[in-house]
């Protein structure tokens, strides 16, 4: 059983961004009758979500969050030695989005930048990578960016996923400092359940064809989607989660040498309210200690844990705090963190429209990445 333990490393500042466009779930009735929608919405406890417009990507949400963080905290961009972008809704199949963000954020070329491709548990995985690299002692400041536009992944005609997912992005600044106590992370994977949540086509196993784009009826309830869209077997996921998650949380708290009472806040992946309320009840946790955003942002995949911290714990992070983070999802992967925080500065959540922060002071000029031309300066060889 692999636990990772760190000391003297922590998140010193956080910021979050969401698309400006609000989807009201009870009015999301284009494809399903109102009474059915009401039943599902009340069961999952998701009343509003944010949807990225056509011009907004995960990277734009993370850019806005990172700009907010850098400006609010007066961070010297040249001190950022590492940028990790966590997402499964990246801008391109290549290059990695982290590299384009290095350019757009005006970070130096000696900044290490790469992507981590994982689902709902990925913020904690991202932390494990950043904290490990921090431990070498050669990195001053690291930016952990986590963004998702899951609204673009799931189709509106599959009621199993149509009311669940929303979009968001966060930025976390990680630094070394004696003030941070111990952080213990537990990371787990079970590839035998890879088909519980999946987008089948568009990779190299099932490359995109006109066929994979076609919407078709996929089950006896008349749910429709294409193979380019994600699906989720919610019941099977739930079954898995209620077995594994409480167990992993208990083990990790014990491994960290703490008890449930030592935890200031329990930050769960915002999957849906049914799952979250069930786990809280099963583990007999104090509901006052469980911040939540499921009702207003929906399930934003890996962004949900840090976005909930930014949105709900802004004025509650003074002094030493111990947070539990717990997340699970596509893979399946699941992770638990008992994380030391101290005086973490949290910025207000900002909004993004048409790929740009709505607050103009957060925008930044940069040379566009796509030039629209593949012409090079060399000449093709001419015969004769």
């Amino acid at each position, binding site marked *: 059983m692999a636990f990772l333990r760190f000391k003297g490393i922590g998140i010193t500042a956080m910021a979050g961004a969401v698309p400006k466009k609000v989807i009201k779930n009870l009015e999301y009735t284009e494809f399903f009758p109102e009474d059915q929608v009401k*039943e*599902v919405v009340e*069961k999952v406890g998701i009343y509003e979500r944010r949807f990225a417009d056509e011009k907004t990507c995960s990277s734009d949400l993370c850019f806005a969050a990172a700009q907010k963080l850098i400006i609010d905290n007066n961070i010297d961009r040249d001190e950022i030695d590492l940028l990790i972008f966590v997402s499964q809704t990246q801008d391109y199949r290549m290059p990695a989005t982290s590299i384009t963000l290095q350019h757009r954020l005006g970070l130096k070329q000696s900044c290490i930048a790469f992507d981590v491709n994982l689902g709902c548990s990925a913020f904690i995985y991202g932390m494990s990578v950043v904290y490990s690299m921090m431990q070498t002692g050669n990195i001053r400041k690291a930016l952990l960016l986590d963004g998702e536009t899951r609204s673009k992944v799931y189709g509106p005609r599959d*009621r*199993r996923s149509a009311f669940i997912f929303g979009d968001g992005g966060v930025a976390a600044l990680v630094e070394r400092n004696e003030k941070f106590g111990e952080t213990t992370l537990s990371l787990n994977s079970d590839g035998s359940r890879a088909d519980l949540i999946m987008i089948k086509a568009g990779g190299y196993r099932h490359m995109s064809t006109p066929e994979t784009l076609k919407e078709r009826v996929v089950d006896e*309830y008349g749910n429709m989607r294409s193979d380019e869209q994600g699906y989720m077997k*919610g*019941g*099977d996921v*739930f*079954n898995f989660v*209620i*077995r594994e998650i409480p167990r992993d949380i208990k083990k990790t708290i014990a491994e960290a040498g703490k008890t449930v009472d030592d935890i200031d806040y329990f930050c769960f992946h915002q999957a849906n309210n*049914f799952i979250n309320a*069930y786990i809280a009840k*099963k583990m007999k946790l104090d509901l006052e200690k469980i911040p939540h955003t499921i009702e207003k942002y929906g399930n934003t995949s890996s962004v949900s844990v840090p976005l909930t911290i930014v949105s709900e714990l802004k004025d509650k992070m003074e002094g030493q705090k111990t947070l539990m983070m717990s997340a699970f999802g596509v893979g399946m992967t699941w992770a638990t963190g008992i994380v030391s925080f101290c005086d973490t500065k949290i910025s207000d959540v900002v909004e993004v429209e048409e790929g740009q922060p709505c607050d103009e002071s957060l925008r930044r000029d940069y040379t566009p990445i796509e030039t629209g031309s593949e012409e090079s300066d060399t000449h093709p060889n001419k015969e004769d």
Partner: protein
Amino acid sequence: MNVQEFIEKFAEAIDIEATELTADTEFRTLDEWDSVAYISVIAMMDEEYDIQIEMPTFKTLKTLGAIADYIEKNK
């Protein structure tokens, strides 16, 4: 375990009248049986009986009586 007791808990979980159900009811044919009902039943089994059942196994159980038997044998 009392089958009738299980049937009442099942009915409560998916919000129908227990009088409509017997041990021979093939629950997947009920109008109310959908993905929401499914997670409600899984939650009920975990909560009431501490039973977490693997999907392939659950799929082999056709009637309420069969689930009750399974719970009895695996408690």
